[in-house]
């Protein structure tokens, strides 16, 4: 055997010692960094730079010629419409996320109970509202709610109801934007919850059955605890996206009537781009950051704690 084993010293002597650059390139961390570099560049260009620029804009005066520090924010606190927008954004986000979660949860269970060979078809169909670009599907909803040609009102007229001012009355308009948001967003919850349901070990259900657990007890002590993290993450993600929503409100109501459907993003656009006060518009949009940061910290801390307990 000895004649086929090369002496260790000879091997080192004949191989060229890799240079510092080669060694650096051969490291796993270097390769990982290089492979993520395009994404890092994209994030810097499309996320970090605009965010810093928005911060810069928010500290300028209306003509963008002077630094005013936090002046724009303190000004906002004195505006009645701003507080109305804060309230509406919270109502919009919390109500929509709640209904998306409830509907997603129910539908996920229904789909989970469909035989495996038919599930694919149902999953595909139920995902349609989520995969259509929201601006396009909201346009279709706008036609359904149209003041002159509403298809809903046409149907309701046949049973002697209406016409309902879907987007003409403040309360109906709020209902309409939330409805469209729920319609678009519920499938995301459904698919996340379905994935969570599929990952719950079947033995837990069998054990619960043997112990004589009722449907509610199985749900309360098996399903929900196993889905808690997914529910929290999905709710957080959806809250952020819903809070920052622009397209649905913009296409459906533009914040009308009487600003009663404005959320942060649409009001920022109205003030900044349409009204010509870009620093104030930037300040309105940045106001979302602390609210969402606090929500994210609470939810993620809870998830970490549960992760450590496990």
């Amino acid at each position, binding site marked *: 055997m000895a004649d086929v084993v090369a002496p260790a010293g000879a091997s080192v002597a004949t191989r060229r010692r890799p240079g510092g650059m080669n060694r650096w390139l051969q490291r796993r961390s270097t390769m990982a960094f290089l492979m993520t570099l395009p994404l890092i560049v994209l994030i810097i260009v499309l996320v970090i730079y605009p965010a810093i620029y928005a911060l810069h804009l928010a500290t300028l005066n209306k003509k963008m010629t002077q630094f005013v520090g936090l002046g724009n924010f303190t000004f906002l606190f004195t505006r*009645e419409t701003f507080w109305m927008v804060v309230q509406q954004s919270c109502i919009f986000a919390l109500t929509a996320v709640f209904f998306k979660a409830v509907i997603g949860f129910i539908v996920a269970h229904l789909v989970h109970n469909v035989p495996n060979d038919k599930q694919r078809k149902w999953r595909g169909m139920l995902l349609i509202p989520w995969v259509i670009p929201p601006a396009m599907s909201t346009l279709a909803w706008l036609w359904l709610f*149209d003041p002159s*040609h509403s298809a809903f009102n046409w149907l309701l007229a046949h049973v002697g109801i209406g016409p309902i001012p879907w987007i003409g009355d403040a309360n109906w308009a709020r209902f309409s934007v939330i409805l469209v948001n729920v319609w678009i967003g519920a499938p995301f919850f459904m698919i996340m919850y379905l994935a969570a349901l599929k990952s719950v070990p079947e033995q837990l259900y069998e054990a619960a059955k043997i112990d004589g657990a009722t449907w509610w007890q199985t749900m309360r002590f098996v399903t929900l605890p196993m889905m808690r993290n997914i529910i929290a993450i999905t709710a957080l993600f959806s809250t952020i996206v819903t809070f920052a929503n622009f397209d649905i409100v913009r296409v459906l*109501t533009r914040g*009308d009537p009487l600003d009663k459907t404005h959320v942060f993003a649409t009001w920022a*656009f109205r003030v900044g*781009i349409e009204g*010509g006060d870009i620093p104030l518009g930037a300040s309105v949009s940045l106001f979302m950051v602390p609210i969402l940061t606090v929500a994210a910290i609470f939810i993620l801390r809870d998830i970490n704690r549960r992760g450590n307990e496990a």
Partner: protein
Amino acid sequence: MMTRRISRRRFIAQTGAGAAAAATANIAAPFVHTAHAAGSLNVGMWDHWVPGANAATEKLIKDWAEKEKVDVKVDFITSQGQKLNLTAVAEGQAKSGHDVLFMGSWMVSRQAELLEPVDDVVNDLVKENGDVSDVAKYMARFKGVWKAVPSTFGSQMKGPASRIDLLKKHAGIDVQALYPAGAPPKSDSWTYDAFLKAAEACHKAGVPFGIGLGTTADSVDSIGAIFSAFGAILIDENEKITIKSDSVRQALDYCKRLYAFLPPDAPSWDDASNNKAFVAGQASLILNPPSAWAVALRDAPNIAEQTWHHPMPKGPKGRYASFLQQNLAIWSFSKNKSAGKSLLRHISSRASAEAMVSASKGYDIPPFAKFKTFGTWADIGPPKGTLYHYPDPHQDQILAVAAMPSPHAVAAQIYAQGTMSKMVVRHAQGEAMEKTLAWAESEVEGFMR
């Protein structure tokens, strides 16, 4: 013969300075109409609603470019989703983009400091073609300096487009007799009282006046014209808030009475709603340029045949109409300003304006006084003469825009936020007059920051 020794360093310095001077001279040189005057010019125009209007304007620009040996590129940018405004704001921020850009009403005031003065162009055009309206001056002239050329392309009047048959049948008003084709108006009886009575009658008949009360341009311009007719100004040119005045109270009270006869969902109407209601035969009158009529020609010819465009009713302070004056501006960072000015002269000429009016089927209204009687408006139909009074050839109206004459920075906010339409909706939906006025005052104070 005297010889001077020049060091290498001195030679480079002198020739460098010479080259720089030559380059500067080149930049500042006037635009010379020769084969050697080539250069490039990027033009951003509004994407016109009327089919065929873009093509006619592009041809005008290309013909000019060919004659002047300029390499021109024309982009037609839609105003849908505020894309045109976003383009202007982005180019102003980046100090880069088109050389010549179409700017909607308020954009000139927002970008005035970044725009090339065009006094020479406008003054020559006015001398040749007659004066422009006060709206044009308000929108594009700042501290006596023209910052944009008032455009024919896209400029529009938002007067009544009335159903001849419905107004005659339900309100007893013959709009063709008030405003006969090819003749001066006989409009003394066309007042806001008559307008209100007609609105009530048409509402009772199930074909209400289709006036929106939302925050988009058509709604804001409609309410703006009514406010102007009552002399209701929210803030004057000296930045004095004048909301708690009798004229504003009168205007608001009138609008509240009118509100009762408008469609119940008028507060949510956008710029398409009035057109749709009119073409669907659900409205007897809308305040709009002839775009609804043009669509009706294609989709509902029987409605188009019964449509008559005419001036606004007369209020206590006069017969005011909302005129949306669009503009063409040259960025101060443009590298070919002289070519830009040459182009603006060309497309503001009588021949160009006539071509644009014809291509837009009468929709576009040129800014100059001598350009209000083109054959297109007299001849187009059916019914023949429906657009005769649209450009106000007999100067029956006072042209204004909502929030004029307020300072531009405040007026732009009043316009964008639809403050006047919101005042109407708040008061009409039950809020006390003084509370509505206090709310509006607080809003305007906020806009003045």
